[in-house]
Structure formats: C-alpha cells, structure tokens
C-alpha cells in the first residue's frame, strides 16, 4: 500500500494542506519540533483506522473552527487505487472507493488493514525513540501469541490466554495456597457445618431416645402408683360408699315389710280423707243436680200448658189475618176511590150535555153516543176544512171583485190652466215679439207648458178609458170565478152534512160548518168515550170491593166481630200475635224439656259414678289396711301406710340420684355379701390408713402428681426436640457435598492437567516452530549489528514470563536489557519490529511505516547499515522517516540509490 497523496482539510495544525505526489519508498519528513510530525503520524493512523477517540478527538483543528477532515489516494499492492475520505462531524463519516464503487466506512478501518489492529499499528508501525524499547506487554503478548499460535492462515486462540483461563478456572475451584475463596473452601465449610449438624442431630436423637426411655420408666412408675391408687380407691369406695348404701337399702327393706299390700298402697291417691270427702260431695252434688233438673222440667211443662185450642184456631187463619192486616187500609181506600169515580162520571155527563147543547138542536140523549162514535173525525175535519177553503175562495173572489180598484190616474191638469197658459204664453210671445224680447222666452215657455198640459190631459184621458175597460173585464172574470167557487162551496157543505146527518145539528151550523162545529163534535166524541171508560171502571171497582168486603166480614164474623173494619182486623191481629207467642213458648219448652231429660240422664249417671267411686275407694282403702275398720279409721290407717310408702320411694329415688350405677352397686354388694370377698367387713383403722395413703397419692404435690408432671414435661421435650431434619437427610447432604468436593477436585485437576499439557505443547511448538519473525529478526539483527548478534530468541524465565534474548556470535545469550548498550538495544528492537511487521504484513497489504528519529543514536557504521535496511524496507512499503536534523536528511539523501522526498512541514 502506498499513499499517493494527502488532502488535509483540517487536522490539528494543518488546514487546507495538500501533499501530492508522495513517492513509494522512503519519504523523509523534515520539520522542527512541534511542527506537526506527530500530527502527521496521527493523520496516517486516522486515515487507515478511523478517528480515535471520537469524543475529545485530540487533533481537531487547532486554529480554525472546522471539523477534522482528510482524504487520500492510496495505491494497493495489486495496483488498484482507492480514494479514502474521512470527516469527523457529530459522528465520524468516511468512505472509500473500490472497483469504481464507493463504500461507506463510517469510522471503521479500511478493509486492507484488518490484519493489523490499530493498537498494534501504533505500537509497531510507529517507531520512535521513546517507544523503541517499551513495547507494551499487551502488544508483545499479542504479537507473540499470534505469531506463535500457528502458521499460515490457521489461527487459533492464543494458547497463553487459554492456559490462563484454564488456570483461573481451576483456581476458582481449588487452591493449594488456601488464598481467595475457591469453591472447594466453600464446600468444605458447608461440609463441616453439615457434619456438625449431623452430630447435633445424632445427639438430639440419642437424647430423645434417652428421654423416651425415661418417659417409659416414668409411665411405668405412674402406672404402678395409679394401680395402687385404684385399689385404695376401690377399698375406700367400699368403705365410703357401699356400706352406707347397704344401710339405706336395709332400711328400705324394712319399710317394705311394714306395708301389707304395697301395690295397693301405691295405687292409693294422696289425701285420702280429702278424696273420700270429695267423692261423697260428688255424689251429693249429683243428687242435687237431678233434683234441680226435675223441677225445671216441670216448669217447662207448665209453659207448654198455656198453648190452648183457641190459639190453634187463630193460628190456622193466621195467613188470612195477616193478609187482611196488610190489606184493610187499602180496602178502605178503595171505597174512597169508588166514590170519586162516581163523581167523575157525573162530571163527564154534564160536560157532554153542555157541549151537545152548543151544537145540537135537541137535548142530549145517550143513544147519540153511538152516532158520535160512528163519526170519522178526520173525514169530518177534512170536509170541514174543504168547506172553509171553498168559503174562503168565494170570499176571495168577492174580495177580488171588490178590490178591483177604479182607475186612478194622475189627475188631469185643469184644462183652463192649460188654455190659460197657452194663451198667456202666446201673448207673452207676441208681446215679446212686439215689445220686449225678454218676454219671448217666458212666453214661449208658458206656451209650451200649456201645450204640454193639454197634451198631457189628452193622454191621461186616453189611458183612463183604456184602464176602465180593463177593469170591467177583470170584474167579469172574477164574478165568474166567484160563481164557480160558490158551487164548490155548496158541494163541500153538503159533504159535511152527509157525515153529520144522524145528529140533530143546528142548521145554522150545518150551513156554515166550521172549526167550531168540528171541535164540538170532537168534544162530544171525547166525552162519550171517557164517560164510557170511567163507567166501566167504576163498575169493576164496585164489584171487587164488594167481594173483599164480603170476605172480611166472613173472617171477622168467625171471631165474633160484627163489623168488618180496620179495628176488627187489628183486634184479630193482636189475638194472632198472642197465639203465636203461646206457640213459640210451647216449642221452646219442648226443647228445654228434651234438653233436661238428657241432663237428667247424665246427672243420674254421675250419681252412679260418684257413689261407685266412693264405694270403690273405700274398698281400696279396706284392701290396703286389711283390717275391717270404720271408714274414718280405715282412712287414717291407709294414710299412715302411704307415708311409709313415700319414704320408701324417696329413699329409692335418692339412692338412684346418688348412685346412677345403683344396679351395679347393688350387684356388687350382693356379690360381696355372698362371697365375703376382699375384706368386705372393713376395719375402721384400716379404712383410715387407706384414706391416708390415697390422699398421699392424690396430693397435687405428691409423688404421683410429680411423676405425672415429669411425664408431661418429658413428652413436651420430646415433641419440641424432634426437629425436622433427620440424620439420614444430613448424611444425604454430606454425601452430596462430598460428591461436589470430589467433582471440584477432579475438575480442578482436569483443568490443571489440560493447562499443563497445553503449556508443554505450546513450549514445544515454539521450539519446533520458531516463528518466521524471529528468523527475520535474527536476519535483521545480524545485518544491523554486522554479525555481532546473530540470533534472537524468546525464552521463559522461572516465572514463565517471556523475554527476548540475543545470541551473540559466540553463542552467548544475553537478555535484551541492561547491560546491552542503548544503541544495541535500539537496533535489536528495530530489527524486531521490522521483522514483526514484515511477518504481519506477509500476504496482506504492506502498511506504511513511520520512524521518528530512530537513527539518532547510531554510530556511523550502523547508521549506514540502518539506512540500507530502510531502503530495503522501502522497496516493499512506504516508509515515512521523521527527523528534525538536517544532517540526517543530508546523509540519507547522499546514500546511493535512495530517492526521497523531503516534506517540509515547517
């Protein structure tokens, strides 16, 4: 790789600086101190690898406020060119061209330099006086590892690193020096704890077993004492319980013997005398009740006797009487109605006669009724109306005739006036003509007026005569009509007469039948009808009343009443009510008697029962006392026996209450009496001893209680001490930890073995496959030192640290350190570096090399040799040699065969 040209936009001290036409080979960069040589090296590194660090980049333009920017044209090994551009804005930017395409770089290194890291490049490709000898260990290790891990393209991980990792892992597991906290130590600690716990658990279990044994002993002892206590209690029970019980039972037995018939006595009621009295009273009461009932029954019979035959008689007619009681008032009212009807009929008769008198020519007769009834009133009305119409028509004609008015016209003007007017007028005119024209006009006018008046009068007369003629014609016509109307009227009159022919109607009325006539006939008709109706009704009413009256009379006559009247009916009613009362009383008395008979039977039965119970009671008492005693004495004796029986019952009850297990106790006593077992008969002193001993055992501070407390305590201790963890579990835990320890140790040994193996392999490999670089170094060294030192090797010291050593011509190996001279050291390191970078770039791009005052300490001969070396190197790669010394520049330029360009950066 060769940098053809550089374009520096802004970088450190450089601003808009162009460095074109950089040659391949050696480029001498000459400049005084602080003129930008370091900046230039940084620029080269940045060009190849990108900005680092990005933040606080130290080579931001110092004098201008611009972003660092640079670009370059590179020619690669294969002759292709690439243009590279980088700029540091808020983030780094960059691109490069490849095969005509632009590819983004951002801040990445160029792909052509990936075989050498930035750090390595800085460390190796920038050789200065200062860093000549002080390769940082990291780079040294890196170089060493990379160089010695394999050849060709096969790259393995650095063996040293792998070994270090293995040893580190191993140390985490186990350490012989007991330093740190390896897992083994932790497991040992856990194991120790687990064993301690196990011991405690074993002790705990043993303690529990011991406690359990003690508990067993205590329980045995308690059992023994409790047995003794039970036995004592049994004995004392006999003494305290059974004996008194026996005494009580004996007493009860004696009482039993005092009662002859205990069953009978049990059945005796309490309060014998009271009971006896009660029974006697009961019998007496029953008798009294019977007596009462009988008397009451007699009373009711008497009541029944009051209901007599007469009451029955009237009751049989009760319905009629009740009926007349309701009707009698209406009956009397009916009589009044009949009288009124009679009056109405009379009134109608009078009206009829009056109306008949207004139109008839004769007094009314009843036989006229038929005729009147036969008249068809609507026909009569029609005919009458017809006559009236005809009459009216005649009158109208007449009226019309009369109403033909004489002709009346406007009267004629007085003829004389007209003649006069004409005359005057003519005169006036003449006058006017003769004397004054003024009179002409009035005269003319007057003349005209007069003429007009004459004409008018003529007209009026003519008209009058015409009208008069017309009037006469009209009169004739109307007269004719009147005649016709007269004829019609006469016919209508005859029709009216025809209807009324059977009635002697007054002729004047017939001649001129009018509404009056019709209304009168109508009235007659009405009165006749009404009279007939009322007369019929009156007859009917009279007949009904007579019949009812007859009936009533008959009824009251049965009861001795003379007159059928309201009073008679009221009296009958009263008698009827009385009869009803009697009847009701009779019926009630019958019910009472029936009821009483029932009660009487009951009372008799009660009496029988009472006397029976009393007798039975006394028989019972007699049975109890056995002896034949008078009632009072027998009762007394029975009461005594009852008392005894109560005592027995009380005693037995008490016994049962006091001893719920009485049957068992009784059985026990019987058995003891029979067998005389276990000292049934007890001595009091013995009993007392038993009691003392029992109290001792029962004493809450006594031995038994203490043992019980101890038992409880032991039980609680056992319960509390049991714990969750068993020895087996802990053994499992211990086994598990031991297994882990075993694993850890095995794993440690495995790792260490592997590390040891790798180390040995690594060492052997180094020996067998000494890297090309060391050979190159040796070659370079041999050349640089003119054969004084021929070889450079790496050896490991006792700490397994790598160190470089040189082998002199004489075969002596000397570590590359003091007391080798500074110049020699420089040469060695230079050789080393040159060899390394040759080796690293082998098969890749040869990266530019920067040397800064590296020849400064060399003697002439070595200087010459060094220059030759540089020129040799420059054949393969571009070398930038920085110096501030003119003489170095000159000497290099004077060296044959070297073309160099001086880059003045002052």
């Amino acid at each position: 790789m060769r940098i053809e040209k550089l374009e520096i936009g802004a970088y450190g001290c450089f601003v808009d600086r162009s460095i074109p036409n950089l040659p391949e080979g050696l480029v001498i960069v000459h400049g005084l101190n602080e003129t930008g040589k370091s900046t230039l090296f940084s620029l080269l590194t940045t060009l190849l690898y990108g900005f680092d660090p990005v933040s606080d980049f130290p080579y931001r333009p110092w004098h201008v406020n611009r972003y660092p920017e640079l670009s370059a044209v590179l020619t690669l090994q294969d002759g292709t060119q690439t243009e590279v551009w980088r700029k540091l804005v808020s983030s780094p930017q960059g691109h490069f061209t490849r095969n005509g395409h632009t590819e983004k770089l951002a801040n990445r290194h160029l792909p052509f330099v990936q075989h050498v890291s930035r750090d390595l490049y800085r460390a190796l490709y920038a050789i200065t006086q200062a860093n000549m000898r002080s390769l940082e260990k990291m780079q040294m290790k890196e170089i060493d590892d990379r160089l010695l891990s394999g050849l060709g393209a096969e790259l393995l991980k650095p063996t040293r690193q792998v070994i270090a990792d293995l040893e580190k892992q191993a140390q985490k597991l186990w350490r012989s020096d007991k330093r740190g906290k390896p897992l083994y130590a932790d497991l040992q600690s856990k194991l120790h704890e687990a064993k301690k716990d196990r011991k405690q658990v074993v002790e705990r279990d043993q303690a529990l077993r011991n406690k359990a044994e003690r508990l067993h002993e205590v329980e045995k002892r308690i059992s023994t004492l409790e047995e003794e206590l039970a036995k004592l209690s049994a004995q004392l029970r006999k003494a305290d319980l059974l004996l008194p019980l026996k005494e009580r039972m004996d007493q009860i037995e004696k009482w039993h013997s005092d009662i002859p018939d205990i069953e009978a006595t049990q059945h005796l009621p309490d309060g014998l005398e009271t009971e006896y009295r009660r029974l006697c009273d009961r019998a007496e009461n029953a008798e009294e009740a019977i007596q009462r009932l009988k008397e009451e029954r007699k009373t009711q019979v008497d009541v029944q006797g009051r209901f007599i035959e007469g009451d029955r008689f009237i009751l049989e007619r009760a319905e009629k009487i009740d009926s007349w009681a309701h009707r009698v008032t209406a009956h009397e009212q009916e009589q009044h109605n009949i009288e009124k009807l009679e009056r109405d009929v009379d009134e109608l008769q009078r009206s009829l006669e009056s109306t008949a008198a207004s139109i008839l020519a004769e007094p009314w007769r009843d036989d006229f009724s038929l005729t009147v009834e036969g008249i068809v009133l609507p026909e009569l009305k029609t005919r009458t109306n017809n006559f009236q119409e005809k009459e009216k028509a005649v009158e109208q004609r007449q009226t019309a005739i009369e109403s033909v008015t004489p002709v009346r016209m406007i009267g004629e003007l007085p003829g004389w006036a007209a003649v006069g007017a004409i005359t005057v007028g003519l005169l006036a005119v003449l006058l006017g003509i003769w004397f004054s024209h003024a009179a002409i006009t009035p005269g003319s006018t007057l003349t005209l007026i007069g003429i007009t008046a004459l004409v008018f009068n003529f007209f009026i007369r003519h008209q009058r005569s015409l009208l008069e003629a017309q009037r006469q014609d009209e009169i004739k016509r109307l007269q004719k009509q009147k005649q016709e109307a007269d004829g019609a009227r006469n016919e209508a009159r005859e029709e009216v007469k025809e209807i009324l022919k059977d009635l002697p109607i007054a002729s004047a009325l017939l001649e001129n039948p009018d509404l009056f006539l019709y209304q009168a006939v109508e009235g007659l008709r009405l009165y006749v009808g009404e009279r007939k109706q009322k007369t019929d009704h009156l007859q009917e009413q009279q007949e009904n009343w007579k019949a009812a009256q007859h009936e009533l009379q008959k009824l009251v006559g049965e009861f001795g009443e003379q007159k059928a009247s309201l009073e008679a009916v009221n009296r009958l009613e009263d008698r009827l009510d009385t009869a009803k009362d009697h009847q009701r009383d009779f019926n009630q008395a019958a019910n009472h008697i029936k009821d009483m008979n029932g009660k009487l039977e009951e009372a008799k039965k009660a009496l029988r029962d009472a006397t029976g119970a009393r007798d039975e009671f006394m028989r019972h008492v007699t049975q109890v006392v056995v002896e034949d005693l008078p009632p009072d004495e027998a009762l007394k004796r029975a009461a005594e026996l009852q008392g005894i029986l109560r005592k027995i019952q009380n005693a037995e009850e008490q016994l049962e209450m006091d001893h719920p297990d009485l049957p068992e106790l009784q059985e026990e006593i019987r058995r003891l009496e029979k067998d005389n077992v276990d000292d049934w008969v007890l001595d009091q002193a013995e009993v007392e001893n038993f009691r003392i001993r029992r109290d001792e055992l029962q004493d809450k501070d006594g031995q038994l209680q203490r043992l019980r407390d101890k038992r409880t305590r032991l039980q609680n201790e056992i319960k509390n001490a049991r714990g969750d963890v068993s020895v087996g579990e802990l053994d499992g835990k211990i086994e598990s930890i031991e297994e882990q320890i075993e694993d850890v140790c095995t794993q440690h040994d495995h790792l260490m073995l592997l590390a040891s193996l790798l180390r040995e392999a690594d060492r052997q490999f180094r020996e067998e496959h000494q890297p090309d670089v060391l050979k190159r170094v040796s070659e370079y060294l041999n050349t640089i030192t003119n054969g004084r030192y021929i070889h450079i090797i790496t050896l490991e010291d006792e700490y397994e640290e790598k160190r470089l050593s040189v082998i002199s011509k004489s075969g002596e190996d000397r570590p590359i350190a003091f007391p080798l001279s500074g110049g020699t050291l420089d040469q060695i390191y230079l050789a080393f570096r040159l060899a390394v970078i040759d080796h690293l770039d082998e098969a890749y791009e040869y990266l530019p090399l920067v040397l800064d005052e590296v020849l400064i300490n060399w003697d002439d001969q070595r200087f010459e040799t060094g220059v030759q070396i540089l020129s040799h190197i420059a054949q393969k790669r571009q070398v930038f040699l920085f110096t501030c010394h003119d003489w170095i520049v000159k000497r290099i330029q004077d060296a044959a065969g070297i073309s160099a360009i001086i880059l003045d950066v002052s």
Partner: protein
Amino acid sequence: MEALRLLHVADVHLDTPFYGRDESLRRKLRNACREAFKGAVDAAIERDVHAFLIAGDLFDNELLSFTTERFLLAEMCKLQNARIPVFYATGNHDPGRANYRAQKLEWPSNVHLFTSTTPETVPIVDHKGQQIGWLTAAGHSSTREGDNLATRYKKAKDDLPHVAMLHTQVVNARGADQHERYAPCTGEDLKLPGYDYWALGHVHLRQRVFEDLPAWYAGNLQGRNPKETGLKGALYVEVSKRGLIEPEFIPLSPLVWDHVELACPENACTNAELTTELAACLRQEIDLDDGREHLVRFTLTGESSLADEINKPESLQDLEETIQNETDITWLEIRPRSLLRPVDVESFIGSPTVLGKTLELLERLSTDDEFLDRITPKDLAHSNTEDVRHYLRELANNMDREAASLLVPEQKR
C-alpha cells in the same frame, strides 16, 4: 384351603441418605419413603394378608431417627390392629444383634423378629387361629455378614405352603454388583430346600432371580438416587401347595427416578430449540402421565454449538428450570458429560499448530510415564490418590476434543 396371602417388602431403608444437592429434594425423598411404607401397610390391610414380610434393611441402623421410629412402630400397630402378623428378617443395614436398633425398638406383639443367622421356622395362622402356612427366616446379626446363610435353611415342610425369607446377595442376579457382597448365595442354594416362595431382600432391583426358581427380590419401596430408576413397590403373593401365582407388583413409590442419556441434538442452534428438543425427548422416554412425580437425571453428551453455554452453571440451571416447567417434571438434573462444541479434531492431527502438538502429546501421555510425570501439575486437589498416573490418564479421556474446543475459535471448525 385358601392360599397363603403375603405382602413382601424389602430394603425400605427408612431414613437412608437420599441423593440430591437440593435439601427440599432430599426431604421429599425421605417423606416419599415413608409414604411408600405406609402404602405397603395399607395394601396389606386392604388385601387382608396373612403375613407382612420384611426381608431386611428396613432402616439404616445408625440413621434411624426418633421420629421415624415412632412412625414405624405406629405402622406396626396398625397391622396389629388389623391382626396381621409381621415377620421381619434383619439385613446388613439393620442387623439384629442386641446393641443394634432393631432389637431395641419396642415392637408391638404382632412383630416377629428374625435376628439370628440360624434360620427359625414359625407357623403362619389366619384370623381364626388356624395354621395355614410356615415361614422360615434368618437375619443378619451384624453389618458385615459374610456367610452364606441360605445353606442353613432346612428342607421345606410339605403339609402346608412353606415360605422362606432372607436378606442375601444372589450372585449373578441383576444389579447384585451394585450392592455389597453380604450373605452371598447362589441359585442352587435357594433351590435345594424346595420352598414354595423365597422372599428376598438386598438387591434393589425388583426381579425374579431365576426363571425356574420361585425367588423374588421385591426391590426397594422408593428409589434413592438416579441409579435406582423406575417404579418401586411391594410384591403381593398368593402361595399354595398347588403352586405359586405370579406375584403381583404393587407400585408404591410416590417419586420415580429416571435417567435419560442423550446425545445433544445437533440441529438445536438456540436455547429455545434445545429446550424443545430435550423436552420432547423426555416426553418420549418417560411416561409423565402415570400419576407419579418424576425425578430425572438427563445426561447430555456429544457435540453442540451451545456446549459452551450449557456448561455454564447458571445457563444449565436455567435450562433445567425451563424444561421442568414445560414437562411438569418434579426435579430435573442435566449433566453435561463431555459435551463440547463441534470441532474437527481429526483435521488438526499432525498440523503445525499448538493444537496439533497438543494432540500429539495426548497420545504420548497415555503411555509415556516420564512425560506424564513431567507435566503432572504441581498441586493436585486429589493429592492423596494412590495411583496418580492412572488418575491423570482417566482425567485425560476426551481431552483431545476439549483442547480443540478451547483452542479453535468458534468460526473455525
């Protein structure tokens, strides 16, 4: 006459140490052991057996806790209340000599101990008091009974079913090599007396010892570690003079150990894929729907791109928890065994690399003692190992793949 009904249990190992780095797991196993024993007692009562046979190792002598003693005696009392006699022959873990726990416990009256190495014959009677069989048994008197006790058993009686009981190691029985060689015997020794049934104990794998011999190991009631896999329980046996009905296995272990070994799936490139594959494998290998809780050790071998990740303890724990949650397994332990990234070791043999040199030296290590001594690390954790060389050579197994896995970066395969 009705057949003799027996419940045969052995190797209960109450309070034995259980496997597990997790205290809760050990506690669970301990409780499971008790539950299993309780289940056996309940089964015996339910089936109204004529005898409850315990063929040794009922508990671990030194480890029997006070609480477990109480529990054990309470269960015996239950059998007593059900009028079931218990015949208990002691084993190497619960020997019968006077100073051992078996003799010291306050057994209820229905428990008959066989603590002597001399076989004793007792009648078996039913509830009515009628004898319906015989039992001959002997017990271990110490923890290291080396004699063949089976040869001391006399000929069986022929009037009634005659059962024998012994805690013994029948040589050639499956799993016998897993146990100490105490009271050893052979099949011939068991066949000779002609018993109708041999109730054996000591080997924890349930099995009929030989096809032509009515001798069974009941196996233990609850697996103690991942080597004791599968369901455990008791044997219900009906014995008559007409013959023996195939004993019925009564599963009693609440917890079941399983061990699955699997080459890590190569196609699993992510944790999620690996989880899915492993979970699927577990479901395939283990019947998780049998109503039991499963404790699984999962050994992963082979190569996987996830090897580095899996080998980290925290990642392993995450993987275990995830698979546990997905499969509903009660407890899961994943053990990577030589699980490494895929590396083409072959290609490095003879290569001019440190790895090539390492492989060469590994070859040498297996035969060159001097070399081995030279590279033996100065400080070994197992410094007291008798045969260091053997030990180191054991450690060097598979070290070639491991070295390659360490040296070759991940992208280089």
